[in-house]
């Protein structure tokens, strides 16, 4: 009888240990520059807090010619990238991969997508609208943003840390990196994945649920 109890305890103990091990959660890193600030605690003491780099306030036109701002992404995580519609090198493969992710999280209202065009001459909202329709993703979940050159290029290089530039020597006129940048609910950069690389895109797909699980 006593022996039976021991076995039972062992099983229960093993189960608890097992569950604890499962609780160990993966956390995504926070990218970008960091700063510190001194904060006053409620008990009067002072301590140092980290200030993370965040996506600044923006106001851009979307494919429906209406303005979108950070408020459209409030309480959501989103995947951002930079492209242009007439690009035939890396953009189609980036958007093919991004569309697969879009389809996987189609029913999750907390996940959004934001593609910025870097072709400020040609990619007007109506061109973006047509592009979105043809890609089969036209709707509020995937926003296509158009803005002035300085605004969009500034956002790309300073905030999303994606290199973009106009290049007269390039056949298509623009060169840019194909990163899909994952932004959390506090507007911080939590991941950057090469949108042309199947392995990294698969990693993005795994990281989105991890970020969604994270407590605010």
């Amino acid at each position, binding site marked *: 009888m006593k022996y039976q109890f021991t076995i039972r305890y062992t099983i229960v103990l093993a189960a608890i240990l097992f569950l604890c091990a499962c609780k160990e959660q993966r956390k995504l890193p926070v990218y970008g520059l960091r700063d510190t600030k001194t904060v006053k605690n409620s008990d009067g003491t002072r301590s140092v807090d980290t200030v993370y780099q965040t996506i600044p306030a923006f106001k851009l036109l979307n494919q429906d010619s209406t303005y979108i701002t950070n408020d459209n992404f409030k309480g959501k995580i989103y995947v951002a990238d930079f492209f242009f519609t*007439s690009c035939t*090198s890396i953009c189609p493969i980036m*958007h*093919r991969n991004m*569309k697969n992710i879009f389809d996987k999280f189609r029913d999750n209202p907390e996940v959004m997508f934001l593609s910025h065009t870097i072709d400020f001459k040609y990619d007007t909202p109506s061109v973006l609208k047509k592009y979105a329709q043809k890609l089969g993703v036209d709707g509020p979940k995937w926003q296509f943003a158009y803005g002035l050159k300085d605004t969009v290029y500034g956002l790309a290089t300073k905030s999303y840390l994606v290199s973009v530039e106009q290049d007269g020597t390039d056949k298509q006129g623009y060169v840019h990196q194909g990163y899909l940048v994952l932004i959390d609910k506090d507007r911080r950069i939590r991941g950057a994945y090469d949108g042309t690389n199947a392995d990294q895109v698969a990693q993005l797909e795994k990281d989105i649920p991890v970020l969604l699980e994270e407590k605010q």
Partner: protein
Amino acid sequence: MAGIFYSCQTAESVQRDAYYVNGRDLYIQHCQNCHGEKGEGLGELTPPLTDSIFMKANKSQLACIIKNGFSTPLTIHGKVYEGKMPDFNMADIDIAQLIVYITNGFGHKQGMYTNEQVAKDLKDCK
């Protein structure tokens, strides 16, 4: 007699296979981004290469399309594609290899296509 016939067939199929393999490399390098790994296209932006009837009916146009690009609207599998395809300035042999790949892959089986046929097609480009 049968032996000669057999060996002839093999020589031709060896050449076709070589074109097919080289054509696949060219496809991955130049075409796959838009047309997809399996020739499935991309939404309504890029047409698929899987319409056998279209590929057969327009075979003599393929070289021109690859070399000079294409911007007239196309109807494939009942969907209209009006995007612009860029031009790819390739040598005739590369175009021939690419054509062998795209007309024998993706469920097609149209056999060999030679450099001479490509040169002839390119003369008659619209």
